[in-house]
Every structure is written in C-alpha cells, then in structure tokens.
C-alpha cells in the first residue's frame, strides 16, 4: 500500500436492515447476493421474500465477481460528493444475471465499450467501509494490481 495514500472520501453505503449483509460483506472484500434457499434464484435489490416461490428463506452466497458493462456515464456537475474528479458510474450485469450500479475504474471513460467484461474490486469509503467497484477483466496470467480509490 502507498503510505501517503489519502484518507478515503467516497460516501459510505446507506445501511438498511435488508441491505446491511451486502455492504458488510463488501467491507470484508466479498461480493455477495441473496439466493432463495428453496428455489435457488438470485434476487437484487434484496428483499424479504422470493418473488418466484414466495419463500422467506435465503442464503447469502459469494458470487464470481464477474460481469459486463451495460451503460456508463460521467457525472460532472454538480460535483458528486466524495470524489475529487468525476467518477465513471455504470450499470453492471453480473454473470449471475442481476444488475447493479457501481463505479468502473482502471480504464479511461472513452475506452469503455458495451458489454465489456469486468471484475469486482473493492474501494474504501469513509467510516472504514468498502464498496464493490468494477475494473476491466484481467487476463489470468496478469498480476493483479492493488486497488485503491483512484487507482
């Protein structure tokens, strides 16, 4: 780690009774989702009942962390809270089939393409939390670069 790294500024996630498991896992660098204990379907955003079989039993399972980019934007004005420079925000479709809004890091905004494969990384936030972000899928032979807020 870079010893002179700045304190994180990115906003901490908003915790609710239903979302806390997700963000707590992210802080431990795990990318997880709710999965119905009875019919096995993933569901996101989290909810207390499976819309397919109406079971209230659920498992929290760790995911592949892989997905693809469906859309991407750069919020310029007003300046987003928690960022020195405009971040890239995208909608990611995970390999498990649900969509999530996150940041796309380690690639210039102009170089992103539709359905570009990405993989999860974790960015620190205030209040000592971490949130899942996505970067271009690396080749297995490449060494993984450490992940920081601004890369």
């Amino acid at each position, binding site marked *: 780690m870079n010893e002179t790294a700045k304190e994180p500024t*990115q*906003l*901490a*996630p*908003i915790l*609710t009774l239903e*979302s806390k498991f997700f963000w707590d896992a992210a802080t431990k660098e795990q990318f997880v989702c709710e999965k119905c204990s009875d019919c096995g379907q993933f569901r*996101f*955003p989290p909810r207390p009942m499976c*819309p397919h079989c109406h079971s209230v039993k659920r498992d929290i399972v760790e995911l592949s962390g892989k997905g693809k980019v*469906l*859309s*991407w*934007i*750069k*919020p*310029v*004005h*007003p300046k*987003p*809270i*928690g*960022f020195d420079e*405009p*971040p890239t*925000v*995208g*909608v990611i479709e995970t390999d498990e089939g*649900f*969509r*999530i*809004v*996150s*940041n796309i890091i380690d690639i210039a*905004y102009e170089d992103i393409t*539709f359905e570009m494969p990405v993989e999860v990384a974790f960015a620190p*936030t205030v209040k000592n939390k971490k*949130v899942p*972000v996505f970067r271009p899928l690396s080749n297995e032979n490449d060494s993984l670069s450490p992940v920081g807020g601004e890369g």
Partner: protein
Amino acid sequence: MSRQFKEAAIAGIGQTEFSKSSGRSEQQLAAECSLAACQDAGVDPKDIDGMITFTLDNTDDIHLARCLGVENLAYTTRIPGGGAAAVATIYQAMAMVNAGLCENVLIWRAMNERSQYRFGQPISMESAFAPGSGTGSLSWCMPFGAQTPASWESLNAQRYMQKYGVTNEDFGYVSVQQRKYASTNPNAWFYEKPITLEDHQNSKWIIEPVLRMFDCCQESDGGVALLITSLERARDLKQPPVHIVGACQSIPNEVEVISNYYHGGDLADMPEAYATAKRLWAQTGMKPADMDVAMLYDAFTPQIFKQLEAFGFVKPGEASDFVKDGQIDIDGQIPVNTNGGLIAEAYIHGMNSVTEMVRQVRGTAANQVADVQHALISSGMAGAVLARG
C-alpha cells in the same frame, strides 16, 4: 350519495406564479393555488370532499383543508413515484369520481424547490430513501457518485444513445423546441428567451455524454392545483368541462421510477411508458393518430424521445429524426409540451403540464394548437386522454 358510476372531468385549474424564490411557505402556495382552482371552476372550497397530492409534497393535507375551510372531507390519498405521480393524480381523482365516492376532488402540488431545497443537488440524506416514496433503490447509487436525478436518468439514457446512435446534439432539438414554445408563453420562466442549438451545445455538461444544462428541467418555486368533478356537474360550472376520457397507471414488475435498472429488459427502454400506453389505448379505444397535442414528462430531454416511442407516435429509435424534422412544433404531427414544459416553463413536478393540457382543450393556451379534440398527457408511469366535454 348513491354510488353510481359517473364520468369525471377537470372543472378548474389554479396556479401561483412560477419563480426561483416565492418568498412564502409551501403551505401558503398550496392554499393559494387550491383556492384559484376552486374559483376557476366556480366551486366553493368548503365543498371539497377529496384531496390528492404526491408523497413527496411537504404540505399537510389537513392543514390545507383547514386553510380552505373544507367542511367534510371524505377521502385523502398520496401517490408515490416522484414526478410519475403527476398524471396518476388525475387517474385516482377520476376513479374516486367514477365510483361515486367524491364530488369535488382537489389535487395540489406546491414546492419551493429552488429557494428552500434543490432536487438537482446531490442528496446524501438517508431520509430521502424512506419507504413510501417508491424510489428506495436510489440508495444503491449514492456511494458511487450517482447522486442526482440527472445521473440516475443518464444511466438509462446512455444505453438509449448507444442503441440508436443518438447524440447529445440530437437531444438538443427538444430543448430548442421547448424554449421556443416558452418564449411566447408569459407564464414561462424563459419567456422571450429562446435558444439555438449552438447555445444548447455550449451549455455545460451535467452528465457526460448524455445531458447538458439545457437538457435538464428547471428547479422552481410554485404551486399548481386542479379541481375534478363529474362531467355532468362540470357542465353546469363556470368553465368548459375537460372530460377525462381515460386514465391509467402502470408499474411493471421490477420497475422503479428513475433508478430503473432492475427490470429484465433493455435499459434503453422505458417499460412503464410502454405499459401505460398499452393500457391507455386499450381503455380508451384510441390511438396516437387521434391525439392533437401531447404533454410528455420532461425532467430531461431523453424522456421525450422515449415517450414518443412508447406511446407509438414513432417506432423505437425514430424519435430523434421526428423531433429534428419539426414534428413536435405547433404545426407538426404532434405538438409536444406547448407551454415549454418542465424544461422551459417551470418544474412543478409535472402538474404545470396538466394545467397546460386543460388550457389546450379549452382553447385558451398561450401557444394554442388549432381545433384540439383529444389530448394525451403522460408522466411516464401514468397517462390520460382529455377531450372537450
């Protein structure tokens, strides 16, 4: 009161001035515009028996009833979904009158949304995502810097741009058109202030590569109200009645107003608008070609493209050429947002679009479309067809 089915009509409209600093409370704006709607209709406010507003409205129903001297209120309700509630208020008022439950339904929306707080600024309070607003999934955007309505809209609109090869300049034609309408509407904030496409392209980026400043609705202070009654009764009141021919709402599975990423379809689509259109055309037996004017919710310019397509005025992907060709101008195939809309008149959360539609049907609009028989109004998740009664 016997519960007989009754056709519903808009009998009165009322509004305050539209400004950036009203100088008075939202409760006062609500009382003023509500009284104006009653006076326009020729209905004594004490006879109001139904009241509807948005879940996001900060004024108090009972306090408003107290201001107006309402004698015996029968029904109050509030509608979630941000601005999507706009046309849903008419839908619910229609249903209340149809069912014979209410005779004088007041709809209001009052906001100091420039001087007191700003929808366009990053929201970082957890209270903004409280249950009941219908927009709880927005909380999942906040840590990542998508913190404004413009950013939430753009996550879908950028996919629309990719899919159909549309650019920000293409969206600019909507902005130029609406500023043109506003320039001849004395109630508009941008009265006598038209812009060119070059002005649009020179306005600053809000969200790259989707929205510039002139693609966005305003932040405004003001209040708007409507008085809904039965068609039969409206015919005996002060104004020519505006018949609610049909109205509906549609919230498809996994759809949420603006953080609309979780349904299974293409992000370029607006599933709620397609579903609303389908339901509305089925309910009224009408089609796009029957409409003489349309008011389409325009928090941001891309929403005009999506609704033109969803309601079937053009095929998917064809809205850009249609708009560029002048077809939403006053002499085009379907004049759209003839008061300047939320972009150029004011942003009273879509309700000033409803009053404009009433004026178009009455024949009293600043930019009057010739011989309006049927008018479409959409707030994306709800729609209505109005006609002379």
